[in-house]
């Protein structure tokens, strides 16, 4: 699965996610990526988020919308919400991670796997690439 989140100079956010799914998937299985609110969500009142990992768990948590809702309704920092959600994902047996950015420009990634191919760049930060 691949994905991107961004905030532009006007303070608008967007998210996109794309995937080939799981190797050897059957029965018309669909994961979280195309499900708005599970693997992908964007709302200028909160954040944009794209997820990667064991999709069934992201669907059960409604993770992308949950993150945005907690930011919007609870007023918590992104760093707090992301740690809560990655812990919650782990508690139900889910693996993977997500990237999120707020309209204020706070941008973070979180994952509970050995690594996640990831990168970020901003108006005042050179491109950073990491795997582990």
């Amino acid at each position, binding site marked *: *699965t*691949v*994905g*991107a*989140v*961004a*905030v*532009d*100079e006007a*303070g*608008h956010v*967007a*998210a*996109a*996610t*794309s*995937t*080939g*799914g*799981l*190797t*050897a*998937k*059957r029965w*018309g299985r*669909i*994961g979280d*990526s*195309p*499900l*708005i609110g599970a*693997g*992908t*969500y*964007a*709302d*200028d009142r909160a954040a*944009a988020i794209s997820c*990667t990992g*064991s999709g069934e768990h992201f669907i059960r948590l409604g993770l992308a919308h949950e993150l945005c809702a907690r930011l919007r309704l609870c007023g918590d920092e992104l760093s707090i919400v992301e740690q809560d959600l990655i812990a919650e994902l782990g508690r139900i047996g889910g693996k993977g991670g*997500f*990237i999120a950015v707020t309209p204020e*420009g706070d*941008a973070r*990634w979180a994952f509970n796997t*050995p*690594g*996640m*191919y*990831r*990168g*970020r*760049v*901003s*108006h005042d*930060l050179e*491109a950073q*690439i990491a*795997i*582990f």
Partner: protein
Amino acid sequence: MGWTLMIHGGAGSMRRGQLAEADDAAGRAGLSAALEAGAAILRDGGSALDAVEAAVKVLEDDPAFNAGRGSVFTWDGRIECDAAIMDGRDRNAGAVAGVTATRHPVSLAREVMANSAHVLLSAAGADAFSKEHGLEQADQAWFAIPERRRQLDEMKARPEGAFDSGMKYG
């Protein structure tokens, strides 16, 4: 107000020490190219929506990643892609599932968002929508790479591993 772009890309093995140098380099090169594609738009004052689509399209074309070209195989030996896009300005959204013939599934998701009354289209219907709306088409050979076929063969050789979390997540 500044701009920020973040990306992720699933590419298979992620065990430190088990990732081949060439795979490591391919992954990093792909991520760099995707970042630059999106950053170029944001740097020029473009929209977040255009930037995320541009970044994802680069990753979809890169066989190192499991999306578009380089997607994994289904049990039946086909490639079926899913994608979604969402605009934070108005919570407009589009998505596709199980599409087989659009080169950039994320652009098809955007077309669903921008030029249909729906949010999520699937399978044959989504393929037909793609053709009708003039999205760039690609045949299954475009998406297929030998390593993903090998992974399918490995998975089918041990059918108890119907869920590939062991392979993907270590």
